[in-house]
């Protein structure tokens, strides 16, 4: 594997169940606040009680980038909020994202799923359904931004955000674009929630990642955005390496031994030209499901033993936002590097295994490994770190 030049994370943006802004995410996680709550908002009859991570209604009144989602398209709206902030924190204007030198990578699992829900509910297409495919959503974002470079949707289930970050970083570092905007978004939908109910994968309580008593995930919604580019001037947090793998084991159940995830972590470390002992913290997938979390702990042990870095996960705080998750975790990693802190894993209480640390504390090394796994056996990991000159 060729060593890729590290790619600068120039800007980050997020909208989560805490509200708009990466800072609200950081502060909520740092304070150990859970933003998941009971929910009964779906039209379908017969829903059991749910705990979800929903973006608060107050966000609906905020302006999204160039009026995205003004037509009621919630995925576009949330993406627009995250893009607005990513641009602002990158000290850029919309002009900086125009033209053939800019690429857009959209990470989503179901994109504009409402169109499918309406179609199935009414048994026919009702008028102009608007966008239907994730590709339609990416096209809308690209047109609104006036992006002229590569535009791609990345669909790798719950690992989509990390895969999209990796692909965008690769695109930038190989010189195929000057700058890339990576956007992740998924919205709360009956379609997804009913499916996870059928799989018996939801918890009726706030999720407890890596906890002895974990019993499922909380579905959520969110959007996050990163602006990536290679710069020689004052490089900040960097995407230093990435790795992708497949369990080749089962379409919904992870490999119990965590071999696939360990493979992607090792590939990311190698690509970043670093070693496990130089990683200061892990931002784990940590859905709160029995098998995912057990698999992750096996993989982490396999790669990092004998001394495991501190681990944090965000899904006990804000739920699982699927296509946005990997990007939110990358944005959180940037804040961890900024504040030199590892936050608590909200919802975690007791762990059945020795050597794992889920309590917050100082970040002692300036590299973080963030990873995700998903249906289809996909695993992805990125190393995010800072250069020596970053303050």
């Amino acid at each position, binding site marked *: 594997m*060729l060593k890729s030049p590290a790619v600068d994370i120039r800007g980050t943006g997020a909208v989560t169940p805490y509200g708009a802004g990466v800072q609200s995410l950081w502060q909520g996680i740092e304070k150990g606040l859970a933003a998941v709550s009971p929910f009964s908002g779906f039209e*379908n*009859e*017969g829903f059991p009680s749910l705990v979800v991570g929903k973006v608060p209604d107050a966000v609906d009144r905020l302006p999204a980038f160039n009026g995205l989602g003004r037509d009621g398209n919630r995925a576009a709206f949330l993406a627009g909020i995250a893009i607005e902030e990513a641009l602002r924190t990158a000290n850029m204007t919309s002009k900086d994202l125009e033209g*053939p030198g800019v690429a*857009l990578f959209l990470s989503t699992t179901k994109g504009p*799923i409402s*169109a*499918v*829900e309406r*179609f*199935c*509910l009414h*048994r026919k*297409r009702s008028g102009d*359904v608007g966008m*239907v*495919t*994730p*590709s339609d959503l*990416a*096209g809308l974002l*690209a047109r609104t931004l006036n*992006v*002229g*470079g*590569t*535009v*791609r*949707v990345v*669909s*790798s*289930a719950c690992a989509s955000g990390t*895969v999209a970050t990796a*692909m965008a970083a*690769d*695109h930038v570092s*190989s010189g*195929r674009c000057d700058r890339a905007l990576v956007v992740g978004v998924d919205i709360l939908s009956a*379609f997804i929630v*009913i*499916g*996870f*109910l*059928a*799989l*018996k994968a939801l918890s009726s309580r706030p999720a407890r990642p890596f906890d002895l008593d974990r019993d499922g995930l909380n579905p959520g919604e969110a959007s996050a955005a990163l602006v990536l580019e290679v710069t020689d001037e004052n490089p900040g947090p960097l995407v230093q390496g990435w*790795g*992708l*793998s*497949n*369990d*080749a*084991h089962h*379409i*919904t159940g992870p490999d119990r031994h965590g071999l696939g995830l360990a493979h992607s972590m090792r590939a990311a470390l190698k690509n970043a030209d670093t070693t496990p002992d130089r990683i200061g913290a892990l931002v784990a997938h940590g859905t709160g499901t029995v098998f995912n979390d057990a698999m992750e702990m096996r993989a982490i042990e396999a790669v990092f033993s004998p001394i495991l870095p501190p681990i944090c996960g965000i899904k006990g705080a804000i739920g699982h936002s699927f296509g946005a998750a990997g990007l939110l975790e990358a944005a959180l990693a940037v804040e961890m590097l900024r504040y030199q802190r590892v936050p608590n894993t909200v919802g975690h209480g007791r762990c059945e295994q020795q050597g794992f640390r889920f309590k917050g504390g100082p970040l002692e090394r300036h590299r973080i490994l963030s990873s995700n796994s998903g*249906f*289809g*056996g*996909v695993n992805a990991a990125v190393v995010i770190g800072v250069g020596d000159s970053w303050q």
Partner: protein
Amino acid sequence: MISGGARVGQDGIETLHEALIPWDSEVESSTDSWVSGLKGRTFFATPPPRFGRMDPLSKLTVGCAHLALKDAAAAGSESVPEGIVLGSLMGCLMTDIHYYTPVCDKGLEHAGPLLFSYTLPNVAVGEVCREFRLFGPNTVISCGEDSALAALVVAHGWLSSARASTLLAGGVEAVDTRVAELCRGDSNADIRSSAFLFQLERRDEPLQPALPMMIEGASWFSPSGFSIERSADLGNTGMKRLWETLKIGGRGFRTIDVRDKEGYASRLKIFIDTEKHGSTTRHRTQVKRATY
């Protein structure tokens, strides 16, 4: 290097090194329904046990992958793919509708957990990885009607940067009349299921091809879109032209490009030299008719 390939379409199945095997009965619907009835024995002497439980997108992807791998092996390749890049515009939309319609009609308890598992397009990739033991990089990308061509561009990049030495890449579309109604407002709209997958291998010596070589690829977007009609081949637009180019052979550089109404565009440059090394097409003496 393109060491092997296969396609599955309304007219039958074909590999790069063998002639078309037509289906054994007429496919009458313009929005082909053949994809719903795919059987494991269409592709495999002994189908994988899971094949019957897969959704149409996965069946088509796994079946076409098997043919592409066999084709590469028959052409002398000893490489084993490590990963896969799949392009698809419609993804699992057909499965989405099949999963969610009974939920709307009959209630929550009619949500099928197995069918829900297939409502992510990368699960088809997961099935390929599981069946053929691919442990390396894998993803599904979607970018309008050039999704499949863009998947080849991504695979070319991963091979060039040594992320992998051998990959499967191409495009798969599995659609039916309900997808046509949802996306085009007409259940009889001409949209087609098809699959094109290639085995791609990294070769460091440029322009010494025993087989066609991918030279470079690029994708871009035009915010004002392109003034062209929507293609019935969906994300596989361009694949037919690539396929024909590879089949016809000749010598020199060939450029395949796709632009779509939305604004997505991709271009792939390949080098072929079948005058020196022989055509990639060898016809079977006995053509078996496929079943579906």
